[in-house]
């Protein structure tokens, strides 16, 4: 582990950006990216859980017996997810309504458990913090870009404001579930084209 803290942070933004490179966390990626707001809201919530659980798991990595580590990780993650859920209900209720069931489902988001198991349980606190933050921001960026594409084509708006003239007829296929798959597939394809050089 010769990587510096900055390297751990940066890798989450491009090299290991979750839905596009790791192809993890697809359930929220497909389900809540109807608009860019929803995408960012989901990304921020996941980032919060990711950073907190990474730090705590890393701090407790020498205390938790390896036989029950998954159970312990899940307790930690579920706690933070419930914290996010309660805070969202209290302060950003409309966002909570539009994300719905997908907030509690962050518990089973494989990115969060994956980082806890694969990274935080083996690395120091600061490294884990940087890793969680990097991956979280990468996830947010991915969700926001997918949400932006789907919102612009699917409803003709960007952040709620119309981008095309009134003669535009929204390509409503894009904001439906199959559109999410097609759109994600095309973005993966573009990522591979750009990354391959």
């Amino acid at each position, binding site marked *: 582990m010769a990587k510096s803290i900055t390297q751990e942070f940066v890798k989450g933004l491009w090299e290991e950006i979750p839905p596009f490179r790791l192809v993890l966390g697809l359930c929220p990626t497909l389900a809540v990216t109807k608009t860019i707001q929803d995408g960012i809201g989901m990304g921020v919530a996941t980032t919060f859980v990711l950073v907190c659980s990474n730090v705590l798991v890393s701090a407790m990595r020498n205390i938790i017996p390896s036989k029950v580590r998954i159970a312990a990780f899940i307790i930690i993650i579920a706690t933070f997810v419930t914290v996010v859920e*309660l*805070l969202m209900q209290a302060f950003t*209720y409309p966002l909570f309504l539009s994300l719905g069931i997908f907030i509690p489902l962050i518990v089973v988001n494989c990115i969060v458990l994956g980082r806890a198991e694969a990274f935080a349980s083996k690395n120091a606190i600061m490294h884990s913090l940087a890793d969680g933050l990097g991956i979280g921001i990468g996830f947010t960026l991915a969700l926001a870009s997918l949400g932006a594409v789907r919102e612009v084509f699917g409803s003709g708006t960007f952040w709620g404001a119309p981008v095309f003239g009134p003669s535009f007829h929204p390509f409503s296929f894009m904001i439906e579930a199959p559109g999410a798959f097609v759109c994600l597939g095309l973005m993966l394809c573009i990522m591979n084209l750009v990354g391959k050089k």
Partner: protein
Amino acid sequence: MRELIKMVVVLTVLSAFSGGLLASLRNGTKDKIEYQQLKFVKGPAILDIFKGATNNPLLDRFKLKDGTVERSFFVGKFNGKTDTVAFESYGKGFGGDIGLMVGVNLDTNKIVGVGVTTLSETPGVGSRAKTDPSFVAQFKGRPLEETFKVKADGGQVDALSGATVTSRGVAAGLTDAGLIYKRLKPELEKKLKNFSTKAVKTKKGEKNG
């Protein structure tokens, strides 16, 4: 053996810590969440009914026991007089329960306004009960104590075209609201008197009520 004890201790401590944190957070955000839910789910209907009220009906609310059910009532204040309450009732629609917010004036027993809060009717057909304001507007000014029926059943309610079941559900919900109102009227009057004499936000007291 040592390892087993360690496992139990670590998991117990972790769970206890987690439980404690969540319990305290839940207590801290409870009121806020309840208010948010009112504001965004029932709020639009309530505020629509109490258009022109001088108070905030979402804050001035109390609960009453109706048999075994506890109901929330929202108080509206018009021209200095606290004589209007709104409460929720339900009617069976085409795709499940239709939630109705009914506002009624206690002096005249007449409906001030009706709003649909929740429904799962067919979009574009039954859902017009919520989106078409002219449908619920017809109830305004009618006495709440009468039995509501759609015209096809020999009643007085103009049904939404093509959505008779939904209209029947709304009518049934209103009839039900009338029954609730009749049962609870004495208590409501008592409560409203408190509101007009105090004329302050009774946020603390209402929690026990």
